[in-house]
């Protein structure tokens, strides 16, 4: 799966989909593939204030655990509760049903710190 063009990416293998002042965040196909079968996702609570590139949670597979870093700052407004009972959604559909959180963006200019699809493509295959 190549990266969807309309998204922005972080070096830590997260993607961001911006919709007005709300950003939806998830992990990339490369990340889910590296981790293997995902068994649990630890996400921040709704209402939590998060800072760009800060550690906001964890993705667990059977044999590994990976920190989640948020690509944007802001307030968490929604969390994908479906992952509690179906963490495999992150493997199946990392850009769709496997979304993690939605954030009310604090500073639109932060986008300049993120990568385009082609920029991310380069580092994903390093």
């Amino acid at each position, binding site marked *: 799966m190549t990266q969807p063009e309309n998204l922005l990416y972080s070096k830590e293998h997260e993607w961001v989909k911006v919709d007005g002042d709300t950003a939806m965040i998830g992990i990339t196909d490369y990340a889910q593939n590296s981790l293997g*079968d995902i*068994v*649990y996702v630890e996400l921040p609570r709704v209402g939590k204030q998060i800072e760009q590139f800060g550690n906001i949670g964890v993705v*667990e597979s*059977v*044999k590994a655990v990976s920190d989640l870093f948020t690509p944007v700052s802001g307030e968490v407004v929604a969390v994908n509760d479906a992952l509690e009972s179906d*963490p*495999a959604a992150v493997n199946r559909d990392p850009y769709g049903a496997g979304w993690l959180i939605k954030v009310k963006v604090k500073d639109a200019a932060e986008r300049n710190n993120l990568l385009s699809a082609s920029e991310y493509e380069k580092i994903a295959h390093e």
Partner: protein
Amino acid sequence: MSTQEFDRTYSPLIFELGQDGRANRYVEEGKPLDAFLPKDVLRGDLPLPDNSELDVIRHFTKLSQRTFGIDMGFYPLGSCTMKYNPRVNDAMAGKREFAQLHPYTPDELAQGALQVMYELERSLASLFGMAAFSLNPAAGAHAELAALLIAKKYFKDRGETQRDKVIVPDTAHGTNPASAAMCGFKVISLPSDERGRVSVEEIQKVLGPDTAVCMMTNPNTLGLFEDHIAEIAAAVHDVGGLMYYDGANANAIMGNTRPGDMGFDLMHLNTHKTFTIPHGGGGAGHGPVGVAAHLIDYLPTPVVRAVPALRKAQGDGAPGAPSDGYTFSLDFDRPKSIGPMRSFWSNFAHAVRALAYIYANGAEGLRRVSQLAVLNANYVRVKVAEFLETPYPEICRHEFVASAQELKKETGVKALDLAKALLDHGMMAPTMYFPLIVPECLMIEPTETESKETLDYFISVLRDIVEEAKTNPEKLTAAPVTTVVGRVDETRAARQPDLRWEPLV
């Protein structure tokens, strides 16, 4: 009516076997509980199954037959030192006067137990060059925590609370950073150099006034001797930090060199590795923690105090020792101690086992143990290197690492598959995927108690398996096939956790 099918691979749970009316009569029948206590503090039902002693014996005997121990075959688990557990140790630990001794027995009525602890502590102190040991911690990781708590308190007493960094090589065992985190320390990971060792240049980059402890093991988890250890210790001491020795690999150094002489201030031992305490399926372990002189006051309470007696003890035909004339006591009055690490004094039954093992060997015997451990490991290493990549092709100590990375590229067969294939040949697999810096890693530690025949058998089987990987990889990815179950669906186990049996409502 159903027929019970004979299936050697499956046992129902003990809960599924139970039936009312099958109770054993170990004690006399008790009166109803509400004869003694008001009903509102009593429980309702007690949903445990009753099973006859015969059914219990059969159930657990079958379970034991589906469990692989050192007693059954070669167990080359790197970093675990799976050497033979001599049965004399269990016989000594099982003595009535040890097993039935209550921990609050007054000191004067438990002098034998205290002397066992004293002799073990003194022997370990000398063997490893430390000023003193505490037998208090219950396991290696527990001792590690104790050591870091000692360091933390030591620095606090000196007003050096800015020291919050613990330096850990990237080859370290996972407990090292975990223990550091439990003390509120921040972990700095140190990259190993191309020789697989910690270099003085690399550590100098991270040393500073905020350095608390540097945690290392020697030989390291690659089985390689850290030859610059004295310089590293000096560099850490120069900035006022402390050196901690992870004793997991102590089997490689006895009678040869000592952590105390290398410059370590703190250390732990896993007596269930080096000193033959049985692993028992994953515990109980036993983790003495050792310190240099300036840290003695911080040891966990209690410590065993020994006062030489004024009169000589009477002979009784048993081999004497100077400490036979001493008076022993448990010393709780230690104001600088970090406190106790566990309910009572030590895993005493294991202290008995460890001391019995030291008695069986003496200093010279233990030196021989390490020599043979190193000899066996190097022998297996050079043979395995003929067909599997060994990333550090030099003299190793008691263990070495091999990598299946090349094999994976060629054939798709991974370290995991090689390990599973070994299980089909009546041997345990080596440690896999550790240390993290070697891809597709297999860590192999034969130990000194294995004969050359066993080692040759292991080498030839592994050689055949690697050959098979090149010609018939599907066979290996399907392994093991002769065991009672095949590879377990771990994803399902984690996604749908089923951690206990539930009674039918």
